[in-house]
């Protein structure tokens, strides 16, 4: 009875909120039309705001101290050198020639042997076969050396990340105080787009393999910490309590109970870390990471879709290989029972045989040229690249009118009006409108936070560019949600569709956005829409998965009851499944926004302007560095505003 009353009350409040929201939007639009073009705070691209100048001066001062400042002499430079020697060590093992020789310590055949052994020792023959096949694939694509560089970079970053992240994660899992201290950083790390990390890091660690490794570590350490801490905190408490009640010391409880029980989650964390590091190493080519990222970004600057595609394909192969070999160690069934003694014995023999093969292959790769250097005549890069170029040229010329038509439709119908509203009206009007919307959606705390952060953006002098970026984020998220919900509902309802589509979603998630930025450029030209389309492609997998899982988790009984009442499929979807999976939808929207933001800023590479372009501008034009760093800050602030509004909104409803 009383719950029904409460439900009714919340419903009324929600309907009121909706009207209120509409009213605010109408008022906003009318005021914006009246005051259009005034106080927009537009700043020409080539000019710095006073704030940018100040940031620029700080950056210049930091650069000036590179060989004098104690912080550099005793911290940044030595740290860079340590990491550098580690990276170079791993690289000479598998990627670059040992000095005075033409091959690394281990040639390609030896690497195959080692990978086969490691994957087999941690999983089974099927995964070993897959891993070896994928690795050979990168060689066939003519990308062996770049691939080894990428793997070396990834591994080094992962090893350091685990070395730092695991202990911290365990500590944060055990101590509330440590977690409270770390949490803001962990939350922030989830919001900051990868592009934003690079410039400030380059200021301190300069450019090169070491800097790229450090950037990758800073990106992946929060992931290790988060998953490890969650793994320990998420444990069933009663075994832990039992252990304490039996007089274990903290260390004993950790070593004998918590760690063994959290092991699976921690391995999962390793898997996530490896994947994150790999995707970052590709982007880190912007600050000198060797490997597959170089050709991809190079292809972007000289518009060679084919070459970029070859490298991108190699990234995908490596991604699948690393993902499958690390996740194979994660047991799917949650059982602690080990296999029987016979099985163990058999495995031990097999593992030893595989180890023998590895040793033999290393020996061969050090003594025979065929096993040392990837054979030159097995190289399909030219063929694949040319085929891709031909195909893309064909597709873009034939699809041109279609894609341009769609682009123009979205641009004129949504993008331009929204941009006018956000960026062409007085800044205080926009701030006020966003604050009121935040108030309606998320409540007073978020509204106040939004106002403060938006004012901070105004203060950076990059208000208008921020609004350009925000416009693209909103449009991309809207389209993502439309597509994501449609596909998500479909695969949530049909197992067949799920089996058919999910592999693409999985693959899409491992693909760095740079890889498809160039084809998008071919389809949509140097426009804002290219950035939007790339953002959509990047965020659709995660949104679709969340929606599909939400739909799947709606209790069967609810759906059955609705069908028994004679509902049509459409009614079941709109009246039962979607409302019941509202939480997942809101979570999907939140994730969608953050993912889109991360990629829309990359759109700066292809003519989308906004903050992302300024970041790029700042990293290559020294006199614009202050502006670039400020743009990074503005992206961060914008990300927090979006995230907070979406999250509190989701929590309230």
């Amino acid at each position, binding site marked *: 009875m009383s719950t029904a009353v409460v439900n009714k009350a919340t419903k009324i409040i929600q309907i009121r909120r909706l009207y209120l929201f509409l009213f605010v939007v109408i008022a906003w639009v009318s005021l914006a039309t009246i005051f259009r073009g005034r106080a927009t705070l537009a700043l020409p691209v080539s000019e710095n705001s006073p704030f940018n100048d100040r940031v620029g001066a700080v950056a210049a001062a930091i650069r000036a101290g590179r060989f004098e400042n104690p912080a550099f002499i005793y911290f940044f430079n030595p740290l860079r050198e340590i990491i550098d020697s580690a990276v170079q060590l791993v690289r000479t093992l598998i990627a670059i020639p040992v000095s005075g020789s033409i091959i690394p310590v281990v040639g390609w055949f030896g690497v195959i042997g080692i990978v086969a052994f490691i994957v087999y020792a941690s999983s089974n023959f099927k995964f070993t076969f897959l891993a070896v096949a994928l690795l050979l694939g990168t060689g066939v694509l003519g990308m062996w050396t770049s691939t080894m560089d990428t793997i070396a970079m990834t591994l080094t970053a992962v090893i350091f990340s685990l070395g730092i992240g695991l202990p911290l994660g365990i500590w944060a899992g055990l101590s509330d105080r440590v977690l409270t201290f770390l949490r803001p950083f962990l939350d922030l790390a989830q919001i900051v787009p990868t592009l934003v990390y690079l410039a400030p890091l380059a200021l301190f660690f300069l450019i090169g393999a070491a800097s790229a490794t450090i950037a990758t570590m800073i990106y992946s350490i929060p992931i290790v910490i988060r998953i490890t801490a969650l793994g320990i905190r998420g444990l069933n408490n*009663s075994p832990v309590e039992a252990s304490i*009640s039996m*007089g274990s*010391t903290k260390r004993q409880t950790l070593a*004998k109970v918590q760690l*063994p*029980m959290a092991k699976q989650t921690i391995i999962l964390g390793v898997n996530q870390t490896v994947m994150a590091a790999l995707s970052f190493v590709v982007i880190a080519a912007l600050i000198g990471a060797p490997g597959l990222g170089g050709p991809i970004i190079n292809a972007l600057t000289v518009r060679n879709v084919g070459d970029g595609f070859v490298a991108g394909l190699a990234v995908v192969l490596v991604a699948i290989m690393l993902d499958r070999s690390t996740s194979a160690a994660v047991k799917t069934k949650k059982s*602690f029972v080990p296999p029987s003694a016979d099985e163990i014995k058999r495995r031990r023999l097999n593992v030893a045989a595989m180890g023998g093969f590895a040793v033999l292959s290393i020996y061969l790769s050090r003594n025979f040229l065929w096993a040392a250097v990837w054979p030159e005549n097995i190289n399909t890069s030219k063929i694949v690249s040319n085929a891709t170029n031909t195909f893309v040229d064909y597709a873009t010329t034939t699809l041109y009118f279609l894609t341009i038509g769609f682009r123009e439709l979205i641009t004129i119908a949504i993008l331009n009006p929204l941009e006018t509203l956000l960026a062409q009206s007085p800044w205080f009007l926009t701030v006020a409108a966003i604050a009121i919307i935040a108030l309606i959606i998320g409540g007073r705390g978020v509204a106040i936070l939004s106002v403060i952060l938006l004012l901070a953006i105004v203060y950076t002098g990059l208000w208008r560019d921020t609004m350009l970026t925000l416009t693209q984020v909103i449009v991309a998220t809207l389209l993502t949600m439309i597509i994501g919900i449609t596909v998500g509902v479909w695969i949530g309802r049909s197992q067949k569709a799920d089996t058919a589509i999910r592999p693409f979603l999985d693959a899409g998630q491992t693909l760095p956005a740079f890889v498809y930025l160039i084809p998008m450029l071919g389809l949509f030209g140097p426009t804002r829409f290219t950035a939007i389309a790339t953002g959509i492609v990047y965020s659709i997998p995660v949104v679709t998965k969340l929606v599909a899982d939400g739909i799947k988790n709606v209790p069967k009984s609810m759906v059955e009851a609705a069908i028994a009442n004679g509902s049509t499929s459409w009614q079941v979807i709109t009246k039962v499944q979607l409302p019941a999976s509202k939480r997942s939808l809101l979570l999907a929207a939140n994730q969608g926004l953050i993912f889109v933001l991360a990629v829309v800023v990359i759109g700066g590479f292809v003519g989308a302007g906004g903050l992302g372009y300024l970041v790029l501008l700042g990293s290559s034009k020294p006199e614009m560095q202050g502006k670039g760093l400020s743009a990074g800050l503005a992206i961060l602030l914008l990300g927090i505003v979006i995230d907070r509004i979406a999250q509190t909104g989701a929590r309230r409803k």
Partner: protein
Amino acid sequence: MSEHNSEAAISVRDLWKVFGPKPEELINSEDAKLPRAELMKKTGNTAAVVDVSFDVAPNEVFVVMGLSGSGKSTLVRCLTRLIEPTAGSVEILGEDILKVNTSRLRHLRRTKFSMVFQHFGLLPHRKVIDNIAYALEVNGVKKEARHKRAQEVIDLVGLTGYGQSYPEQLSGGMQQRVGLARALAVDPAVMFLDEPFSALDPLIRRDMQAEVIRLHKEVGKTMVFITHDLSEAMKLGDRIAIMRDGAIVQMDTPENLVAKPADAYVADFMRDIPKSHVLTLKSLARAPKPGEATDGPELDASTVIRDASPIIIQAGRPIRVASNGKPLGIVSSEDVLKLIAGEEQ
């Protein structure tokens, strides 16, 4: 603070546990008497254990009962400092538990106390035998010795042959046997059992209760047994403490609780229990009325009425009740009927 009873195995005085931002301020304050919700609203605190004192005699089974949220688990955890109490004192085996340092506390936990948990708390990644040997292991006992001891308790709780299994391969009832065995492995002086059987289905629960009674007879431990199941409490408890909102409202033997509930709360609690199952002849014994036969068979005063009633009916006249040969009075079939009828309304 009143003195501790030096005879007792466990002696608790004025024990408090308050969760919240300013726990100390609540001790002995007026606010502590507020209902939970109001207290929460006013101070942000939850008083989980409120001014509790009691003694448990050696070898006694002391049952703590109460509704969900009444503070039973918190109380039992305070006794071994799995939760640090806010105020009060606890003596176990003559030692002031709240004053000992951590290494002494660990030593006591490893050798003198043990605990059985509602959700078993088994270590899923260890074999049954290693679960049971865990306390010995953390205490540094060599593998051979601890496995030998573990095997003994495995046999004791009827798990022979399951030592090499993993917890997930056992049924719920068997898992809790592992829990019991683990608690027995260190041969503790005191056992704490927090609703050990409430996650089991009724048939298995009855088996396990019988098991505890058997074990208690065999190994004779002091036990603090938490439950919210009245019949379980009645069956096992030498004495029962009833808790409400953190405080003990009444503490007595089962019969006295049924016969003389201290207030409406306890009475309400006791309503569901068939009195004839708990009360003994002692509570019905009265002086014979004029003209009543006084030559019926004699039964001991401690006989539960349910068990006595067939004899009374068969005898066709009142029976005589005696305690240790000393006559207490008589009980007629009418008395028994009245008692049962009284339950029905």
